[in-house]
């Protein structure tokens, strides 16, 4: 299972980094979402991977349990990344509508947008 989870985190991270490097608004948003999935699984596994164990201290006997804290952290991280993705979508949309280009990188003034306009 360690191999499976590690592969999943690695694949998500690689995909996320690749998409962010495309430097276009939509791939960047998807890339950041993939990265946040990767980090959520990563935090979840930081409390050690365990199967069929409750995330609470056993009250009776010495039954084993899994660490509840990473699960709480993941919950916080999910909520924050959800909100941040929404903000990012709105800023990207505003930027696209204002400037007419979805490039994330800033070029020297008059380089990119004017060229595209000229091409059209």
């Amino acid at each position, binding site marked *: 299972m360690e191999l499976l989870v590690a592969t999943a985190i690695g694949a998500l991270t690689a995909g996320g980094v690749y998409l962010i490097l495309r430097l276009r608004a939509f791939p960047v948003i998807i890339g950041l979402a993939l990265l946040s999935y990767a*980090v959520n699984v990563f935090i979840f596994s930081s409390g*050690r991977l365990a199967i069929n164990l409750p995330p609470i201290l056993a*009250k009776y006997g010495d039954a084993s349990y899994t660490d509840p804290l*990473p699960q709480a952290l993941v919950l916080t991280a999910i909520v924050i990344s959800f909100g941040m993705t929404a903000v990012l979508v709105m800023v990207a949309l505003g930027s696209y509508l204002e400037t007419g280009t979805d490039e994330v990188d*800033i070029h020297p003034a008059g380089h990119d947008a004017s060229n595209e306009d000229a091409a059209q």
Partner: protein
Amino acid sequence: MNHWIIAPVILPALLAPLIGYVMRHDMPLSRVFSMAGTVALVAIALGLFGIAADGTTHVYRLGDWPAPFGIVLVLDRLSALMVLLTSVLALIVLMHAIATGWDARGRHFHALFQFQLMGICGAFLTGDIFNLFVFFEVLLIASYGLMIHAGGRARMRAGLQYVVINLAGSTLFLFALGTLYAGTGTLNIADLAVRLAEIPESESAIVRVAAMLLMIVFAVKAALFPVQFWLPGTYANAPAPVAALFAIMTKVGAYAIIRVHTIVFGPDIAATEGMSGLWLFPAAIVTIAVGAFGVLGARRLMPLIAFSVLGSMGTLMIAVSAFTPEATTAALYYLVHSTFAAAALFLMADLVITRREDDVLSGMPPTVQNGLFAALFFAAAIGMAGMPPLSGFLGKLLVLDALRAPGEIGWAWTAVLAGSLLTIVGFARAGSTLFWKSTAVAIPEPGPEEVPAPEEGPHEKTPSIAHHAPVTAMEAAPSMAALAALAALAALAGPAASYFEATSAQLFDRSSYVDSVLTEDPAALLEAVKADDGHGSEEGGSDGDGEPTGDGEYGVDDHGEPVGDAATEEGH
């Protein structure tokens, strides 16, 4: 527990939604509330500063949970200083934003401003590293809104880039926290310090990875090379008052490095011995170089100031990278200085730019009150470049004085001194182009007629007149206040330096921090909880409800007795 410790977080947190929802259509009312809240924040920060000045570390337990299990806010000299710095800067920036009407050019300025203050104050006060992440997100999400305040092509594009970089940085922060938790099993800063001291060097790989990941995250915030590239574009395109407020945002990154890499990954800890300074030092030197050459090469005023901020962050971090009490004293002095210097420059630049066509550094007809702007720019520039008599000179002197170790003296002194020289040249060129060359350029047609006109009716705020209107006292006061802070820091350098000395002494006294936060032994606490738990479940069992969960126990306590009382009363 002193409940005032949480006030700098609670006050803006309550005020922001109130302004955002209730007063969003009433600009005068939201201005009044925002200003009142910021003044109250300054008062609270002064009070906390007084409380922390006695040298003890005050701990505020949220929900009264003991330290390793619950989240704590920690007030010591350093966090009190940073909260006070934030609130004073916020007051200056808010005065400028209201006087120049920046807050009315877009929506929700005051609500976002208060949320930003909540995030910054929280980040300075928290004693839990995951909570630090949460406050980072609060201040970032507010800064996204402030960054694109008033809109515009260049600003929206720079804003999108800023958001993307910081979201990537936040993800990296989470990776770092996951690694740290996997390696130590705790996220409380004091508890981390204890655990890290126990980790032998042979098993330190995962902790070292976490330390470096965290350093990269904080370096993104503090705009250190190689992750400094977002700063010039962001600061140059942000609304000027927002850029002035962002002067504290880079300091949040610097504060986080000072706090975490001193107390948790300190220089005397076997697991991460000296690693932080080893990487921070060259990064800071390259940052100074990037900032200095940027100042020299900038063709517009706002990027020029942004690059000078970058250079000042390099100078600050070079002092931090030594991780000695003396160097940290110098770093704190320079931190306070560079915050006000950057704010003064941005606010002053805003007054000039709104009276010119744009901020391109070229000869143009002189603005009204050319002499006043030239004097303000001159004062702010010598503050930022580090010339006497303002505090930049003393700050750099302290930094140089603290960096005398054989390996670092050559690089550090060369970088700081050469960087200062290039910055002076860059500012001198910009100032003479903007203010002196302009008088030499032949004044085109509208100049002489239009200049005296606004003096008759400066209160008419039609755009064409406002463009050439002389600056009012209210508009000039905030940038002058920032300059006055620099002058005061220079004049009161002795008391200030001794306070910073006490601050860094407290910072490097790791055991007193740990003892204050972890008042009880975690193992004993855990035993107590277990014993308490066992006792409770026995009671629950003896009641004979047959419910094995804790809920049954609470049910008996909460509902059983009142029902019984009611029954007896009815019986009587």
